């Protein structure tokens, strides 16, 4: 049950394609990886959003169905989207609120596939999936769409369908129940030794640790380019 925290890499990074927080964390985390000359252990955490935030469905930008969400929850969600959007725009990205809560299992299994078969193409895979998904251009529940993203990223997708319904699915599903017992609840989560850090605001601290703890430890911050 401790596999969720174990890795030979210096840092484990948990992400989910359908999370706007993870979306705006991808490029800064990839940049940190390149800056430090390290390879992080990227893994999928497929969020079960309705279990803790209620659910909602939108059509043409308007909420047409909502369950289990108070006004306060709605305000917080709206702020979170606005916040993620402005940081996405700073990265030259577009972030449109999703119209339903997507099942991101397939593209998340895609992360495992890329890590296993074409590690060097991981950044390209994220670029092939994340930005178009957040422009509402991808049906990530369609395996052909995910295969297309893999191909676009220069990753051989032959065998992915079998992986997604076999070994990949098993590995993905085995990870999910390990999160809460190990103190992990959202994305992006960074596992750095004994530290479990939720949110990209910890990137300055992670850099400080992985580059030798020189000077005072930094506070949390969303770094801006």
């Amino acid at each position, binding site marked *: 049950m401790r596999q969720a925290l174990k890795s030979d890499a210096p840092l484990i990074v948990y992400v989910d394609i359908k999370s706007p927080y993870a979306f705006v964390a991808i490029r800064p985390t990839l940049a940190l990886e390149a800056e430090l000359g390290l390879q992080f252990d990227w893994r999928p955490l497929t969020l079960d959003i309705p279990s803790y935030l209620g659910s909602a469905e939108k059509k043409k930008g308007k909420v047409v169905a909502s369950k289990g969400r108070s006004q306060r929850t709605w305000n917080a969600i709206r702020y979170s989207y606005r916040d993620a959007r402005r940081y996405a725009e700073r990265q030259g990205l577009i972030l449109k609120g999703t119209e339903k809560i997507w099942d991101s299992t397939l593209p998340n299994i895609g992360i495992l596939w890329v890590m296993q078969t074409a590690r060097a193409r991981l950044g390209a895979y994220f670029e092939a999936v994340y930005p178009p998904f957040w422009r509402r251009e991808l049906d990530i529940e369609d395996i052909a769409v995910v295969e297309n993203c893999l191909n676009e990223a220069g990753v051989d997708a032959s065998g992915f369908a079998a992986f997604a319904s076999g070994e990949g699915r098993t590995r993905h599903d085995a990870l999910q129940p390990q*999160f809460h017992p190990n*103190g992990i609840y959202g994305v992006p989560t960074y596992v750095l030794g004994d530290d479990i850090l939720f949110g990209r605001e910890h990137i300055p601290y992670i850099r400080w640790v992985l580059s030798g703890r020189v000077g005072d430890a930094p*506070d949390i911050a969303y770094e801006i380019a």
Partner: protein
Amino acid sequence: MLTVYLDFKSPAAYLAMTPTLALADRLGLATTWKPFRTVERDVPKLGKEETVGESHRRVRAASQRALAIKYAKQQGIDLTFPEKLGASDLALGVLTTIEGDPLPFIQGAFDAYWRDHADLDDLQIVQDLVHKTGTQMSAKLSRSRDLLDAAQDQAEEAGIVGAPAYVIAEQIFVGREHLPWIEEIASTL
């Protein structure tokens, strides 16, 4: 002009004080301090049977506390949470009535809550705090709760959803992690 919304019982607001004051000093930024009543929750006990949502909330609350303690240590603060989370309404209401520099009261209230675990909704405790910090108020302490309610409504209407929240150049930022962007905006004003 920077407006900062805070709640004395919010660990995030407490830990934001030093970096926020440093930023304001560095840029010579005029700062207005306003109250915002946050919802702080105890870490739920592990139940025999938990839904996924209950488990998520418990793990999230425990994680947030652990991270607050971790970063507090970096500021030289030994952050301990009160056994039972108190209220801060009365002291927050005072913040709407302060004439002159509010910082001695703000610092005093944060210290009272986080070092002494004082009940900042207790009339005697808040009265003592007002005297101790030499705070001048434009309204009676008995009106504080009503004034807080009005301020809370205004803040929520303005789109504030938590504390610390910062308003600068009509943008709202919740959390001190946004200070780099806030500094960037402030530098251009």
